[in-house]
């Protein structure tokens, strides 16, 4: 009775109308299987599962997933082939996400194939690959690289010829799936032993296929083959193919060429050829289709190594890049900043000053705020190359104007950048140039900016130290305590709360006490609430005695405040530090 129960129960649950119950029972399969033991799992559970493959897609998906983890329940790696019949069906169903999961499960199982299991796997693979329906054939394509990689040497030629048939399938989705697996397949080959003629033939045929969806994959597949075989092979066999992609009639293929230029150049190796690929790429920076220009522009940083080839090439690249600042599509201009800054480390300080800075300045004055924003967010890359002086001369006016931009999102990105500048430029510079600006931003009308600046100031205090904060920063911003707009008085308190962890206890005891006291009598309740919160932060820095004598009375008084919320926060503060 006990032995019959699990399978019978499962059978009942799987016939239930409610899909959730069916899903739950599938998710329980591991427990059921371990309860039944290996032998009964093999002889009863698996056959039952094989008969239950007519169900909703979600149930089949769950099943495909569970079967992928069934190795132990079925008796270990030598019995994994018993899972194949069910997975074979699941790899051939209509719904793609079920097939993908079945493929995933088979892939993970393949890590531990024994010889016998591999044999069964290869037989199954062939059945999938020669099925009359196209869905199993596309699944076979996804598994080809596994089959080929693990197959014994004498079985490989036949497998390859089946793959060739798949790569020439009449159904477009199969062809495409075959070509998609090409990259993974090449990744499993060793340099001296691959059937290179045939592999190359497949690549060349599919690279000229009429289907755009197939040709789209050709660039990365060619790069994969080139990476395997080396630069001499690439120059001899892959170069015309690759250069052809840059002139393809479909903009999507040209897009792929542009975005992968770095890898293309690295596999072609020789200077001469690199120059050829390069000139094709530079043409794409002026392609009629904006998407191609965006992809190519984003890939510019990959050109870094080629800048050192010779001066002529570097010059061509630079002038091509400069003209992008005038592109009619702002998406292209937006992609320029992060990409071109990547070149800074290759150009060195002089080169960057001469070539990158002008571009940077132009982009910072762009009419589209997305463009300006992209510059500011990526300035970090260029700051390490340029020195303090360059920065203070060129960038600072622009940074300041950004911090005063009417768009708040631009102001906030400038705000977040201030700590980096501070770190690079040092205390003197900050005090002279950026301190006033920071004070200004503390009274920005947008709350997010004030909060962001508070965080930035805490960060900067981390670089410059408590003494700086106590002697320079806090005195400077303390005037906000009697600003007539309550919002800025609150800002001061919130900023202080953030700075407290870095301050010294003496300072807190001596210098902060009077401003805090006066603000605790502020007419606006919200200000008094924030006083409570700041004092609560103090409690962690001060010794019990000083805290008790200085601040507890204050809090006790606020506990009797006319506003309920003030009472609450005062009580909370006292609770934190009894």
């Amino acid at each position: 009775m006990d032995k019959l129960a699990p399978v019978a129960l499962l059978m009942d649950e799987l016939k239930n109308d409610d899909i959730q119950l069916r899903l739950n029972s599938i998710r329980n399969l591991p427990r059921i299987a371990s309860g039944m033991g290996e032998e009964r799992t093999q002889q009863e559970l698996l056959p039952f599962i094989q008969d239950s493959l007519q169900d909703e897609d979600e149930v089949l998906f769950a099943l495909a997933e569970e079967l992928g983890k069934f190795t132990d329940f079925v008796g270990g790696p030598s019995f994994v082939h018993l899972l194949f019949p069910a997975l074979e069906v699941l790899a051939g169903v209509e719904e793609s996400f079920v097939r993908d999961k079945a493929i995933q499960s088979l892939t993970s199982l393949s890590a531990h194939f024994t010889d016998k299991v591999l044999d069964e796997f290869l037989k199954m693979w062939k059945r999938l690959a020669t099925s009359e329906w196209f869905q199993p054939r596309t699944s076979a394509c996804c598994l080809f690289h596994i089959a080929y990689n693990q197959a014994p040497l004498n079985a490989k030629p036949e497998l390859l010829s089946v793959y060739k048939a798949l790569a020439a399938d009449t159904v477009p989705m199969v062809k495409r799936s075959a070509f998609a697996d090409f990259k993974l397949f090449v990744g499993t080959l060793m340099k001296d032993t691959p059937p290179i003629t045939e592999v190359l033939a497949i690549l060349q045929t599919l690279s000229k296929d009429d289907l755009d969806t197939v040709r789209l994959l050709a660039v990365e597949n060619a790069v994969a083959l080139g990476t395997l075989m080396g630069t001499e092979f690439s120059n001899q066999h892959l170069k015309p193919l690759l250069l052809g992609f840059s002139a393809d009639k479909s903009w999507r293929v040209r897009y792929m060429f542009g975005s992968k230029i770095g890898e293309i150049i690295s596999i072609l190796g020789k200077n001469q050829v690199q120059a050829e690929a390069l000139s094709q790429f530079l043409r794409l920076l002026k392609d009629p289709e904006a998407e191609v220009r965006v992809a190519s522009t984003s890939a510019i940083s990959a050109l870094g190594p080629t800048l050192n080839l010779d001066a002529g090439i570097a010059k061509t690249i630079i002038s091509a890049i400069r003209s992008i600042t005038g592109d009619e599509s702002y998406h292209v201009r937006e992609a320029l900043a992060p990409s071109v800054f990547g070149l800074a480390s290759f150009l060195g300080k002089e080169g960057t000053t001469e070539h990158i800075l002008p571009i940077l300045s132009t982009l910072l004055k762009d009419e589209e705020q997305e463009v300006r924003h992209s510059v500011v967010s990526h300035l970090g890359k260029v700051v390490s190359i340029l020195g303090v002086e360059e920065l203070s001369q060129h960038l600072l006016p622009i940074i300041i104007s950004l911090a005063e931009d009417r768009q708040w999102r631009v102001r906030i990105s400038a705000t977040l950048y201030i700590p980096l500048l501070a770190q690079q430029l040092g205390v003197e510079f900050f005090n002279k140039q950026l301190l006033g600006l920071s004070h200004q931003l503390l009274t920005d009308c947008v709350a997010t900016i004030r909060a962001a600046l508070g965080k930035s100031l805490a960060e900067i205090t981390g670089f410059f130290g408590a003494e700086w904060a106590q002697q320079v920063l806090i005195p400077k911003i303390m005037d906000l305590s009697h600003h007539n707009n309550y919002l800025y008085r609150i800002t001061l308190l919130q900023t202080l709360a953030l700075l407290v962890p870095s301050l010294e206890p003496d300072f807190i005891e001596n210098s902060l006490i009077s401003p805090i006291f006066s603000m605790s009598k502020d007419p606006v309740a919200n200000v008094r609430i924030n006083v409570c919160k700041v004092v609560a932060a103090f409690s962690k820095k001060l010794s019990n005695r000083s805290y008790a004598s200085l601040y507890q009375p204050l809090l006790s008084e606020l506990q009797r405040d006319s506003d309920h919320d003030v009472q609450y926060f005062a009580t909370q503060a006292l609770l934190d530090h009894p």
Partner: protein
Amino acid sequence: LFLTKNTPRAWIMSLGPDEFLARANGSHESTQQWEFSQMFGEDDETSQDESTDNWISSLSFDSTGAYLAVGYNCGQVVVLYQEDEHTYQLCCEFKSHNSEFDCLTSTEIEEKINAIEWYPFSGKNPQLMTCNDKTIKLFRVAMPNSDHDSGFPNARPRRVFQGGHAFNINSLAFNSDGETFISTDDLTINLWNVEIASEAFNIVNIKPDNMETLQEVITRSDFHPTSCNLFVYATSKGIMRMGDLRDSSLCDRPCKEFSDPAGAMGGFFEELVATISDCKFSPNGHFLLSRDYLSMKVWDLRKVNEPVQRIKFHEHLIPKLCDLYESDNIFDKFGCCWSGNSLQVMSGSYNGDFYICDAFQPGNITQLTLKANDSTWGQFDTSNKALHLDWHPKQDIISVGAKDCGYIYVRKDNVEDES
């Protein structure tokens, strides 16, 4: 030498356009005999029911011709299966769309099925796509497993593509690559991936900046049968524009524009009758068919300034245009289609009439009439209009839908495709 109905289709498909034209123009088909084979639908002659809920709104054969899908105003879809050469049996029936209330515009979104397209590659279970004004759905018609006892074919929705259209969807078309399709409304065309319902790319947008200057809307679109990059859309100005997906991401600038100024009728109704109600690529991919109110035109893709044929079968309507305008019938959208061998074209008319014409032989027109309702015998019945029709892709079997009935006609000397 000359192309006839018996010429193997595979060979016809292999001909280039000039060779095809040379052989098509020379062929003289004997008068065709089409025989009524079967009717499906309500056809309740005694019913006084004025409701148009059960009226057919779209009709389509799949790529093998074994399945025929019919969509109705009430959101139902019926799938028929070709049991033998001449008979179609009911395979399954399902409610594709329900009517919805759009809160934003306070209007009802009808459940009427505007278009049905079959997925071009047949797996074990055929798949079809349907749409109403706003939502597109992909269904799988699951065939019963022979091992299973309870086996009725049933349709299950696989994907729902929503939110892509602000205006009413008028057509769907699958790409020959099997992975993408386009959906078209009055002003935009979107490109979708069959597997991804959460995103679409807009590839054509003719919406003017100022909607008050709107002059032209898109009426239909179609994908080329074999070139994965070409598609065409027809507009209310009687123009067809071909777009190339390879040219640019937004295909606002067509690569070709087909228009026929010389064929203009002139007069007060010129603009209204010029609007194209349907357009279709020929199966061999070299020609285009357009249906405007008074005629069908066959175009060679290489020639944009005039069609190779103007097939005028509605001349008798010209004196009636005033009445048709008053009754709004002048805005009726008639469908059109090609025969599987690209030699003939077909379109419907009023009174239950429909016309089968040789695409390349001027004048060779066969008129047929659907089994007429007794009560309307003798009158000019504008309510009995054969708007929806389709031709079996491999055999000379046609299906026509008018009001709530669908009809199947078979060519008398029907020969199955030998390819």
